[in-house]
């Protein structure tokens, strides 16, 4: 939408209303994280700003376009809207974006089949001319998450939108993630230069290796290569598909001496949040006792050359594949990530350690990785309505869960991937509360693009509501799997109980699953997490009781300050200050919130002021009239005298 008045500040205040579903609240926070990772847009809880977005559970998913400057601007995330792409879509509206197919130039790219549109719905296919809407110099994007799908508002079975390039017919209407063009437009509209939480990414395709350096004091080097004796034969970014490209970093342990180390250090990065996730692909063809260690080298005024701190040792026997690794970091000052390869013992004369597709961001790491090998085959050969299951994973709170995937879809859903989350329990498990309270399970099919900001992964989340009962039953759905589940035998012969699954039969179409980098080297990677979301069952504190960021309630400073009428004492610039309670049409004010104001008082005051001014003006007018009258009367009398004298 054209007009600077419609822009939000780069940090948008939000308020999550109480009526939102808990799962929706969790997914909204995930959507915010994607905005932070991929754009300069940030979100903060509303702390009294004049304009903010109120997210509520309306009867659907909807938003206004741009900042309407109405104070509380409503954005609805209703039933079935709790998908990350839906939430990102609605927030793109709020940030100032119309739908992609309403661009002024859309008729160059798609044909609208007017006779196939449901009666009365034709207005949904309007366009906005280039005085109202700008495409910001970005080409028409069939892959935009703001594009309708081909069947939108149809009256029968034929599509309402036909793409001029037929190959894009099933591309339009994607609801996975921001496309590259969505992000480019957002960057241009809001003058973004970088993602708020993004730190670094490298696929080693360029000779400058993204500013990474060989560390000091080592005996060997990491070398940029496109193939390595002993493996791997190709990189991971391109899998050897592009001639003249496809590089990775390799430490040849075959030729190194026992005790040799090689340090590869990232460029300097500047953390803001104090926690990071390092993600990379690692190919280990070194000896079984050789190790890869991850350090951070942290800098401050006392350590100008930096202090090394070990984070994790990656060991394990060599494997003939690129393995995905996640390492959680906790750097709070300027730092580099250091990869240290160490040849610890005698090993094979060829091979070594290889790194590719490194990504560093200030986000939390996914907890569990489920890799499905030969995924195309699995999709093609698994009979319909037949699930495969991930291994059981145990969260840090002690609950075990697993993902059930129907590679050929559940019954009645051919051509789809169907995905379900199940709780798991073993005989003898103790310490859990049943039914399982408020754990959000997220199942993400990872788009394995080398650059984290360009990934369009597909994810769905479900949340364990301890009060939910099963359909046609009074049993709690998320109760102990030993009560509501069935006993199954694991591949190693151990037995466990699997509870019923919650998820969707339409997780992703086969067509989309075979697009982008969802399958790479034949394999698909699912990233699974189980997070506690019980804190989202509470109410978001309204500004009157929520100190603004940068101000903290300090009992010492505030102990002698009494704020009346529900006011809250905060410390601002070292001084205690009362933040007063505010309602829709009333407010408290004064240094101790001792006075009450209201719109009624304001109206009375305005009326009284107006009447006073009116009265004063009347008095002045009367006085002026009387004075003028007297003056002219006197002059008339004087004139008569003169006339008489002249005449005489």
């Amino acid at each position: 939408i054209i007009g600077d008045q419609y822009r939000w500040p780069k940090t948008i205040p939000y308020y999550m209303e109480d009526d939102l579903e808990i799962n929706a609240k969790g997914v909204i926070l995930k959507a915010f994280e994607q905005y932070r990772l991929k754009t300069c847009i940030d979100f903060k809880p509303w702390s009294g700003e004049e304009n903010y977005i109120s997210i509520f559970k309306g009867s659907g998913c909807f938003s206004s376009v741009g900042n309407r400057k109405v104070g509380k601007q409503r954005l609805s995330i209703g039933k079935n809207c709790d998908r990350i792409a839906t939430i990102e879509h609605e927030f793109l509206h709020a940030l100032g974006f119309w739908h992609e197919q309403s661009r002024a130039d859309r008729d160059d790219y798609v044909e609208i089949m007017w006779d196939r549109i449901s009666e009365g719905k034709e207005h949904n296919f309007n366009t906005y001319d280039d005085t109202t809407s700008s495409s910001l110099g970005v080409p028409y994007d069939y892959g935009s998450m703001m594009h309708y799908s081909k069947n939108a508002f149809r009256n029968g079975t034929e599509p309402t939108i036909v793409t001029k390039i037929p190959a894009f017919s099933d591309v339009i209407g994607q609801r996975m993630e921001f496309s590259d063009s969505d992000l480019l437009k957002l960057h241009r509209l809001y003058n973004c230069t970088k993602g708020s939480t993004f730190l670094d990414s490298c696929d080693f395709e360029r000779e400058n290796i993204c500013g990474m350096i060989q560390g000091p004091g080592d005996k060997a080097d990491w070398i940029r290569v496109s193939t390595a004796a002993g493996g791997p034969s190709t990189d991971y970014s391109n899998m050897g598909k592009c001639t003249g490209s496809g590089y990775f970093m390799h430490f040849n342990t075959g030729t190194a001496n026992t005790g040799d180390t090689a340090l590869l250090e990232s460029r300097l990065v500047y953390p803001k949040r104090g926690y990071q996730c390092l993600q990379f692909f690692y190919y280990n063809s070194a000896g079984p006792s050789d190790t890869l260690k991850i350090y951070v080298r942290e800098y401050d005024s006392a350590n100008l050359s930096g202090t090394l701190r070990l984070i994790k040792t990656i060991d394990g026997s060599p494997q003939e594949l690129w393995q995905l690794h996640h390492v959680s970091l906790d750097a709070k000052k300027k730092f580099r990530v250091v990869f240290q390869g160490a040849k610890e013992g005698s090993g094979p004369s060829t091979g070594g350690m290889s790194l590719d597709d490194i990504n560093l961001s200030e986000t939390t790491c996914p907890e569990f990785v489920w890799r499905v090998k030969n995924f195309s085959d699995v999709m093609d050969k698994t009979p319909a309505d037949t699930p495969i299951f991930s291994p059981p994973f145990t969260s840090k709170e002690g609950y075990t869960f697993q993902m059930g995937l129907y590679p050929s879809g559940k019954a009645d859903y051919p051509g789809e991937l169907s995905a379900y989350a199940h709780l798991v329990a073993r005989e003898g498990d103790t310490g859990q509360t049943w039914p399982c309270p408020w754990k959000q399970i997220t199942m993400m099919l990872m788009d394995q693009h080398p650059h984290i900001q360009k990934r369009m992964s597909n994810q769905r989340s479900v949340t364990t509501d301890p009060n939910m009962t099963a359909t046609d039953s009074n049993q709690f759905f998320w109760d102990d799997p030993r009560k509501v589940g069935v006993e199954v035998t694991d591949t190693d012969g151990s037995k466990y109980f699997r509870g019923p699954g919650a998820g969707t039969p339409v997780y992703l179409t086969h067509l989309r699953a075979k697009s982008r980098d969802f399958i790479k080297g034949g394999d698909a990677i699912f990233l699974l997490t189980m997070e506690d979301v019980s804190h989202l069952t509470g109410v978001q504190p309204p500004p009157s009781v929520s100190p603004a960021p940068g101000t903290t309630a300090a009992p010492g400073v505030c102990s002698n300050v009494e704020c009346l009428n529900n006011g809250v004492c905060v410390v601002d610039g070292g001084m205690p200050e009362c933040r007063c309670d505010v309602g829709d049409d009333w407010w408290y004010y004064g240094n101790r919130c001792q006075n009450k104001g209201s719109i009624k008082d304001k109206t009375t005051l305005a009326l009284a002021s107006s009447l006073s001014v009116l009265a004063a003006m009347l008095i002045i007018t009367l006085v002026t009239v009387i004075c003028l009258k007297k003056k002219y009367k006197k002059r008339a009398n004087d004139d008569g005298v003169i006339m008489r004298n002249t005449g005489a």
Partner: protein
Amino acid sequence: SPRAKLPDYDVDGGRDLDIFDINEEAGLNLVEGDIVLDETQTRNS
């Protein structure tokens, strides 16, 4: 493949509903399916 004692739960009600389908089912008649116009915009329209 073992069958669960309780049936699985489809969070989408077993249907692939896009934003516009959800809003249509809810009886909403919004601009372009999911856009709310304010009073000034409505008058212009």
